[in-house]
Each structure stands twice: as C-alpha cells, then as structure tokens.
C-alpha cells in the first residue's frame, strides 16, 4: 500500500451544472458562472467561504474564458489563497490536494466547454467560434499544421490504437460498441443529455467513419456546457446541510510518453494503468465494492482502456467481459454482475465536458437523490478520466 493520508478527510459539498446544448450562444465565462452559482447554492455556503479556485483551461494566466482570473472577480469572491487552472479529470485532484495541504479550506472547481472549431465542422463555420479560437488557450491539437509528419488532431492516435488493440488481442469492435450502446441507453434516461435516443449495435456499426476504424458513435458529442464542484474538509462538510461525499483515494498518472502519442510502448503502458494502479494502492475499497463506475469516454476506446486498467478484466478481454456483463433488457452493462457504468450517459450521450459531468453525476448518485435514475443504495463510485498520454486521474468517492 502507498501512503494515503487524505483518506476520507475531504468531501464534495456542492455540484452545479448548466444546461447542455449544441449552441447555447453563451460565453465560457457565462457558463462557468452559472455552474459556480448553482454549486454554491447547492452547498448552502456563503460564497466568501470559497478561498480557492480551480478554473477551466490549460494555462495559468489565461484571461477571458472561465479561468480563475475571470471567475474570482465575476463571482465577487474577495480573497483566495490558492488558484490554478486545469482541465480533464486532474482539475478535481489538484483542487482536493489544495484543501488537504491547507493552502485553502473550500475550493471551487469550474470547468467549461464550448463546441469549439477543432471539435466540429459546423462549429468551424461559425464566425464567433472561429474568432474565439484565435485567442483560446484550450486546445488539444498537436498537428501544428503539418499533416505529413504529425497527427492532425490529438484524437487520431486513439483511432490508430483501436486497430492495434484489435490485432494484438485478436478481437473486434464489440467492446467499443457495447460501451457506446451502454452510454446512450443511460443518456436516454437523462433529461439533461444532448443525445436522448438510445442506439443499437447496428446503429453503431452503420455510423459514419471518421478516422478509420473510429466511427462517429465512438466519439463524444461536442456541446456548450459548464460544470462546477466545491470541495472542503470532512469536518466542515459535516457541519453543512448536505450529505458529504468523501474523497477516499485519488491518483494521477504520468508515463514517459507524454507528448508524441504514437510512441506509447504498449496498450497497458498508457497512463490510465498508472493512475488506476496508484488509486488501488491507496484505496481500502476494492473493485468488488463498486456500485458505479465512471470510465471517461472522450472516445469509446478511452472507456475501454479505463475499464481494463481498473481491473474489471484482463487487457484485451473487454469485449468478452462486456458481453458477459450485458443486461439485455436495459441494454446496459453490469460489470461483475452489479456495477453500473456511466449512469448519466457520459460524453457520448450527455455531452463533452472533459469528464467534469462524471464527477457531478457520481456526487448526485452517492447523495441518493437522482429520482427515477437513482442507483439504489449507491455508496461507492470510481471515476477514471484523462488521456492515454497526459494527466489521467482516478478518484474513489464514497458516502457513509
């Protein structure tokens, strides 16, 4: 076991979300502010209690957007003793660390996404989105305009990995297809999801080829949205009216291949295996204890990798595992016969939020007030979010 001094000593006390939409005609800051205000109301705290902010973005001094520089003033928060910008799953981990270290007591995490021009052809025809992109600090492209020598977009190596996975493990696209169907089945029950229609395996097979062998239904849906969570100490959380959702264990993950995506040595050497390994080294809860599992689905291949890295099956066996775990009636996965997967529909159905909506859904389910979507008696949730190559995060949440 690794050291885990923060075990159950931090808690999520607030979550807030905006509506999700393909074109909300709003700025990132506007979305971030709405999510933040909802989260503050949800926690039932005075906003001046917030003394740490993790904004949305990849650069520390980003102006505009929903970075901390803009958020703090726009929210009228007088004083912070810790600030940072972050994205994907790691933003949550950074913020939790800051509370645990004592640099702040109550931290607000805000993550916003726009259907940006790098994610969508129709978005790239929108002059407002084009202009915003010229000044955007949030990218994801590694092509640098050099299509002979670099990938055009950071997503293409994931497409390459799908083919490599199928060859190395002598398997087919079943795992990717079933993950896509699972997420769309859950999305169909989520009134906030952008994609509310379920899909069949035939729909998956027939979906448009984008980056062969990756198809449209393997890819998350670009949307405009904002998400916020508030984290504080377990002591403070117990004084509030909300049910504390404790952070039981966390891990990030780094590998030697952080930059040139094609150089990953093997499927099991991508950074998800490191993050999930770090998580299990720190968690008293084991895989059989999981009520809900949230594998990030920027691409379906991410979700398959996170599932294997978490240890639900051996590398390369997700197709068989998912087939054995398939609930035909509901068209969803029940891993180990019980663990539900991505109960809000994830990026494939609810919409692309860099995984921020996975945290929000996990907290709401563990609080037990998800209405007709509530997983009965849910007490534990494992979240795995990130990239094959950079800042993957694994977080175990639990309630008493």
């Amino acid at each position: 076991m690794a050291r885990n001094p923060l075990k159950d000593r931090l808690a999520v006390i607030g979550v807030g979300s905006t509506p999700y939409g393909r074109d909300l005609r709003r700025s990132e800051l506007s979305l971030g502010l709405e999510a933040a205000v909802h989260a503050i109301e949800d926690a039932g705290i005075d906003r001046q209690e917030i003394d740490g902010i993790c904004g949305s973005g990849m650069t520390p001094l980003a102006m505009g957007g929903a970075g901390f520089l803009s958020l703090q003033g726009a929210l009228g928060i007088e004083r912070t003793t810790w600030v940072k910008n972050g994205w994907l799953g790691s933003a949550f981990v950074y913020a939790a660390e800051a509370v645990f270290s004592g640099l702040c007591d109550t931290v607000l995490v805000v993550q916003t996404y726009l259907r940006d021009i790098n994610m969508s052809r129709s978005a790239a025809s929108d002059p407002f989105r084009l202009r915003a992109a010229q000044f955007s600090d949030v990218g994801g492209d590694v092509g640098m305009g050099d299509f002979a020598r670099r990938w055009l977009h950071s997503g293409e190596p994931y497409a390459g990995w799908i083919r490599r996975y199928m060859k190395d493990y002598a398997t087919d696209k079943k795992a990717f297809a079933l993950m896509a169907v699972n997420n769309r089945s859950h999305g169909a029950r989520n009134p906030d999801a952008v994609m509310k229609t379920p899909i069949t395996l035939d729909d998956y097979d027939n979906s448009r080829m984008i980056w062969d062998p990756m198809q449209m239904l393997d890819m998350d849906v670009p949307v405009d949205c904002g998400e916020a969570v508030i984290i504080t100490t377990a002591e403070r959380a117990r004084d509030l009216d909300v049910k504390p959702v404790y952070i039981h264990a966390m891990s990030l993950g780094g590998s030697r291949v952080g930059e040139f995506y094609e150089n990953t040595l093997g499927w099991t050497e991508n950074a998800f295996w490191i993050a999930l390994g770090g998580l299990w080294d720190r968690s008293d809860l084991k895989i059989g204890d999981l009520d809900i599992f949230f594998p990030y689905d920027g691409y379906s291949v991410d979700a398959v990798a996170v599932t294997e890295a978490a240890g639900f099956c051996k590398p390369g066996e997700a197709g068989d595992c998912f087939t054995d775990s398939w609930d035909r009636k509901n068209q969803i996965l029940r891993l180990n016969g019980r663990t539900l997967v991505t109960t809000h529909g994830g990026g494939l159905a609810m919409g692309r939020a860099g995984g921020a909506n996975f945290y929000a859904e996990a907290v709401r389910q563990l609080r037990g007030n998800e209405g007709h979507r509530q997983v009965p008696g849910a007490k534990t949730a494992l979240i795995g979010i990130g990239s094959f190559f950079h800042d993957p995060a694994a977080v175990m949440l639990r309630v008493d």
Partner: protein
Amino acid sequence: MSAHEPLSDHDVFALFPNVMIDRDNIAHYRALAAGHLAINRCGDCGYWVYPHRPMCPECLSWNVTPTEVSGQGRVFMFTLIHQLRDPHSNIMEPVVVAAIELVEQAGLRYLSRIVNCPLEEITLDMPVSLTWIPEGAPRSPAFEPASAQGLEARG
C-alpha cells in the same frame, strides 16, 4: 547556397512555416530539407532519442546528435482520416496517417504518410521503406511497402 552548406536557421524556419521549430528539433528539419531523415541518437549509449530532446533519457548524456536512420520499418498503427475538421479543407480524403516503427529501436516511431499502396492493402506490421514525396519543403518523407521499393530497384 551550395549543396554542402547547411541551411541557415532562417531558411529552415521559412521552409516550415507551420511547424513548432525550436532549438531542440531544428536539426531534424534542417536534415529533412536536405532529404535526410535524422533522429537524435545518444553518442554514449546508442539510444535513439525521440521526440527530439537534447539529453538522453536512458543515460542522461548530453552527447546527442542527429543521426540518419536506415528508413526501414513497420506500420505500428494508422488511421484513415475520412473527415477533416476544417470544413474548407481541400485535402483529398481519406488521408492516411501512420506511425512507422523504425527498425533501429523498439518504440521508435515516426509519424508519416503511406504512399504507393492501395488503402485497403495497408496492414499493421507491414514492412515499409522510406521514400520522399514532392510535397512540403521541398519534399517530405513518406513510407511505401518495402516490396514496392524492391521492385523499383530491380526495374
């Protein structure tokens, strides 16, 4: 500019206007412009250092120099890009982007194009050889089936 005189930094920047060229990778692009595929190699332990970095991650030596590779490799992974995100792109689709594992070292992969091969005949682990295509500055490296080169040589 004589054939033996290396291009100036200024010329390399001008030839690759859209590439993030820096102190650590400019030698690679200077070599490309001269028709050579060169990867940094550690002079002490022989490790090929890629992406282009000034220090060897195996032995921490700074004795790293761009070294021409054999140009032989295998297709490690590839995708056929059926849809580009730029709606105004005039690139003919689908575009093949492939990571070629060079024979010099396990995991040493160079991202490139595959040419002289019908798309449906590209397979993983297929042996390929370096060739040059008239595109970019002034030509760009690409890979073709190793057998194609053999035929050409015989012809």
